């Protein structure tokens, strides 16, 4: 089937009318070009948006206290309560498949006043009391020194890890940071490390202006007692936090005498759910890309089918001669099919090459820019997509050739050879 003679036959037939062959091929080229570009653009958008998560542990939720909305066990509605440090252990104990349960306390926040000073420099920063696990939930690059560890927690050391944004506000360029002291709401903390966060989430700059101190030292220094401001909870890979969320809240409700049907007492934000929504969006986007791409491709294929019909008509006489000379129906059918598939694949390949060329150019242009703030990054198609596209091409080439080939063998040699 793939002998040199066959190729010679196909090439001869296709090159007999170059201009028409090229025009026909363009339809398929254009279709596959659109398909690949759409998929790559979708991928670029996906990469850009997911960059925003900055490698965060997406199987996470955040939980904070709100005001109860139902009276329960003699307690009135409208009651305020606080998470306690014991809640953390209780959640870990009673809910399975928890990876991290990090209690957090916080100073400052949006619109907060200046709370951190160093010498003559002051600034308004978020100050977090945290456990060492938080770095796995909210990844950051430690640019110098180290992050908080369990010795800091156990000894309640007053140490701090500051963001690059904090450093530029409080320090002169080139000044030694590690070992220096900053004053947070009147309490001195020694700086033991600096960090830089990835991701943007729309407030890339704000993310660099944070200070992390050990949870225990924070509680002691700022009179938190056993109170916990909020929690960042990550489930183990393989079990979704969205499913476990209910159990976690259940534990909190029993421990704090909250009505089981009080939906407003425990505030939470489910990152996993949001992430899944976005993932779903991109699945849909990919579906649209395939749909549009394949439809455009289809019109190209109809073009090929159409031209093959004309070719068969034109070559009626030739086909008759071939059959008189001993060509079997399958030889004729095979040739028309091979011509159609060959034409489709060649033009499809050209389309893929063209599209990847355009993508390469876009990537080159993007690489010269700072893409961390952009919603578009590294548009690309993987080998799987290319193989899928090729499979689509081969199948469509077959489809395009099927009717013309069938027409070709319907031609009777007698009719084909009639000389008038």
């Amino acid at each position, binding site marked *: 089937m793939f002998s040199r003679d066959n190729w010679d036959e196909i090439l001869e037939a296709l090159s007999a009318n170059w201009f028409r062959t090229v025009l026909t091929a363009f339809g398929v080229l254009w279709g596959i070009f659109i398909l690949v570009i759409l998929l790559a653009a979708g991928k670029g958008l996906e990469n850009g948006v997911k960059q925003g998560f900055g490698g965060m542990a997406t199987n996470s939720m955040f939980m904070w206290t709100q005001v109860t909305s139902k009276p329960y066990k003699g307690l009135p509605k409208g009651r305020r309560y606080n998470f306690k440090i014991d809640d953390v252990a209780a959640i870990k104990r009673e809910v399975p498949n928890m990876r991290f349960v990090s209690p957090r306390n916080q100073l400052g926040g949006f619109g907060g006043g200046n709370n951190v000073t160093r010498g003559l420099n002051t600034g308004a920063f978020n100050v977090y009391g945290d456990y060492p696990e938080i770095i796995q939930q909210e990844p950051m690059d430690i640019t110098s020194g180290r992050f908080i560890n369990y010795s800091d927690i156990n000894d309640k050391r007053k140490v701090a890890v500051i963001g690059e944004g904090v450093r530029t506000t409080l320090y002169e360029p080139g000044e030694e940071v590690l070992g220096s002291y900053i004053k947070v709401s009147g309490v001195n903390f020694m700086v033991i490390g600096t960090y830089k966060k990835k991701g943007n989430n729309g407030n890339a700059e704000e993310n660099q202006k944070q200070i992390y101190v050990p949870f225990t030292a924070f509680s002691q220094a700022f009179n938190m007692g056993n109170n916990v401001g909020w929690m960042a909870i990550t489930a183990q890979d393989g079990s979704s936090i969205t499913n476990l969320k209910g159990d976690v809240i259940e534990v909190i409700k029993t421990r704090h005498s909250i009505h089981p049907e009080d939906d407003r007492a425990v505030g939470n934000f489910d990152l996993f759910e949001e992430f899944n929504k976005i993932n779903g969006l991109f699945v849909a986007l990919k579906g649209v890309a395939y749909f549009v791409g394949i439809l455009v491709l289809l019109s190209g294929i109809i073009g090929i089918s159409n031209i093959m019909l004309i070719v068969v008509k034109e070559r009626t006489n*030739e086909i008759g001669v071939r059959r008189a000379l001993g060509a079997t129906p399958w*030889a004729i059918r095979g040739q028309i099919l091979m011509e159609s598939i060959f034409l489709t694949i060649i033009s499809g390949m050209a389309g893929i090459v063209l599209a990847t060329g355009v993508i390469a150019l876009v990537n080159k242009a993007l690489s010269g820019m700072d893409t961390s703030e952009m919603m578009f990054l590294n548009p690309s198609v993987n080998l799987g997509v290319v193989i899928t596209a090729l499979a689509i091409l081969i199948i469509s080439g077959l489809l395009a050739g099927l009717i013309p080939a069938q027409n070709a063998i319907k031609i*009777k040699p007698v009719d084909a050879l009639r000389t008038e």
Partner: protein
Amino acid sequence: MIEIKDLHKSYKTGSNSLHVLKGINFNVAEGELVSIMGSSGSGKSTLLNILGMLDEADSGTYKLDGVPIKNLNEKIAARYRNKFLGFIFQSFNLINYKTALDNVALPLYYQGMKRKERIEKAMAYLDKVGLTPWAQHLPNELSGGQKQRVAIARALASDPKVLLADEPTGALDTKTSYEVMDLIQKINEEGRTILIVTHEHDIAEMTKRIVNLKDGLIIDDKKIDQVKALQHV
């Protein structure tokens, strides 16, 4: 070589049925050079198509070299055509995007012969019809006579039992016609059976036997003294 008994063929055109062949009985021995004559509509082309397995008879028997030709599916018909028959057409029917050599090699391609062998053999047949220098030319670079000689070489390439020629000189001027007939006579003298359909008397007289058809019946079948085409050239 060819045995035909009581052959009938009719065509349906709309509600009318046209009875073209009304019982043909006809034998051709090996090595004969036969011309089939008749006015248009006499059924001579239909007969040739049936002989060439391009068309099937309604009734009657047809044996070619002892093999009954009956109820053929397309695949077997294609094989028989390739093995038993060589066709020569009035309008040459060369494939116009293939060189003379490739045209001649085409029946061998369908026999599944290897390319090198095929080209060698095709070249030998081109040489036989005196067109070696034109091997790499496309049909539209050849004159009518040369085209018909390429077609003859092609018909010979598969070494068939019978050559069927449908008005082989119909599109050629007299001089070229005689040249082509000279070639056909030479091929016949090598022992090959040839059937020619023609309506030109001078061409018919260059064969060894004339069969006259009229209204679907053989009205006359006689051996004649062959006129050598070479005398006229």
